[in-house]
């Protein structure tokens, strides 16, 4: 990590939430250090409450660190912007806009020339497999389809980083598998740097180049895993391979140990 400039970095990031009324302090993140190369698919893995969503908020610019810095292309992040695409667990589409209008929202709000973004929209609609649904409203789509619109809506702006907060968490198991494969296919074509948040170990190992395992109280990185599987990855065969199960077991064990430790400390 020396000569190479990272795409994004967390440098000694600490985030503390203080509640003046209850007179309490929550250390959501403590001394977080993380660096991603351009085009890397990074995963933050951990149970609920471990601070991964807080890290995402800092990256997206929805919040600022208490200490430390979050950098994109070497510059600190000040506020949300088009260069950091965001896909949340809820699709959060604009219900009064059709699919195409939702997807082209970013370009339209930022004075992109019309012909350009109309063509781009068609391309992304094809990429996420929604051809034929251009004029549908969100309430006419299924959850998986809405999430695909959300992904296209973020990606059309060609962000430097695509930030995804458990985007498939609200979907059923079958849809989730399809969406994971879809995301990987699109990512292989576009090679955007991705910061992907999840609590699902299988998902993290399937999708990412590197997985950062996080544990809570305080939120910190417990383990970094370089995912050894070559691409393209086939979900069905990969998940049942011995190698996969070994890596998974290692991670699960670490998470379990850390969680127990925290619970015991809390008791005393």
């Amino acid at each position, binding site marked *: 990590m020396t000569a190479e400039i990272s795409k994004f970095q967390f440098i000694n990031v600490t985030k503390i939430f203080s509640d003046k009324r209850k007179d309490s302090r929550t250390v959501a993140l403590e001394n977080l250090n993380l660096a991603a190369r351009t085009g890397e698919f990074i995963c933050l893995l951990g149970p609920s409450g471990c601070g991964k969503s807080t890290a995402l908020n800092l990256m*997206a*610019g*929805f919040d600022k660190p208490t200490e430390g810095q979050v950098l994109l292309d070497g510059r600190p992040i000040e*506020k*949300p*912007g*088009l260069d*950091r*695409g*965001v896909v*949340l667990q*809820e699709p*959060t*589409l*604009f*219900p*009064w806009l059709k699919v195409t209008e939702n997807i082209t*929202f*970013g370009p339209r*709000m*930022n004075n992109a020339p019309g012909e350009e973004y109309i063509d781009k929209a068609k391309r992304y609609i094809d990429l996420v497999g929604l051809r034929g649904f251009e004029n549908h*409203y*969100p*309430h006419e789509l299924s959850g998986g389809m*809405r999430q695909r619109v959300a992904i296209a*809506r*973020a990606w059309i*702006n060609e962000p430097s980083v695509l930030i995804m907060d458990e985007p498939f968490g609200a979907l059923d198991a079958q849809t989730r598998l399809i969406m994971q494969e879809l995301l990987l296919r699109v990512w292989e074509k576009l090679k955007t740097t991705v910061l992907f948040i999840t609590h699902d170990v299988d998902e993290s190992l399937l999708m990412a180049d590197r997985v950062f395992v996080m544990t809570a109280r305080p939120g910190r990185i417990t383990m970094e895993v370089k995912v050894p599987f070559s691409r393209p990855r086939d979900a069905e065969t990969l998940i049942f391979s011995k190698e996969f199960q070994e890596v998974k077991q290692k991670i699960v064990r670490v998470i379990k140990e850390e969680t127990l430790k925290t619970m015991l400390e809390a008791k005393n």
Partner: protein
Amino acid sequence: MKKVWKIFNFEGAKEIFISMLAIAFAVFLWFLTTYMGWIKPLFLPSPQELIETVIELVAVGYRQISLQMHFLVSLARALFAFSMAGIIGIPMGLLMGFFPVINAILDPFVQFFRPLPKLALIPLVILWFGIGETSKFVLIFMATLLTVVVSVAAAVKNVSENRIRVARALGVNQYQLFRYVILPSVLPDLFTGMRVGVGIGWTTLIAAEMIAAHSGIGWMVLNASSYLRTDIVLLGIVILGTTGYLLDILIVMIQKRAVPWMGKA
């Protein structure tokens, strides 16, 4: 023959049919009660008598003014007050919802006046605005305005934080956020606020027409009651109730057209 029934095959048709049956049954009970003499005509005129009253008031009028005219006068008073309440109230509510400072300034007054029965304000309104149309307008206007403002301001504050965050991540500035995200988001609530406001404003009509009016359905009810013309009182009440109901339905219909996504995604 079966094709004729197809036009009744729209959604909610069954419920509307049941409602109409319920109303028909109530009217039948009413007719039966008066026909059997269980209640004296002074207290409850029969349906037939009411129809005669309608004919009389349309032809001869009440105090030289026809029934249609009374109705139109009331409707005009109310609609004008509703329109002004919407035109002023909606922007006011939007500003209060979006700017905490404006909310801090205006909210105490809104919350103070809103629960006051407008009836109690009559002496004050007469003192300030006289006994002409202005004071009647003020009462209905106030009642509707305060409801609309509160509704709209609350709607703005309730726009989901996730939606705002996602919009910001798509590069909107403050103006764009307001115009292209917040405004469409609160559109359904704008209609709901108007619906409730119009409902409340319409009930204030009678109070407003207590102020030295010479026309209007509300005035007609009050005037007729002092002459013990129960039939006219009852007719006036039926007209007031039905019109209020129809106004509500109208707003809901416009809402369904303008905001087709409401209650869905």
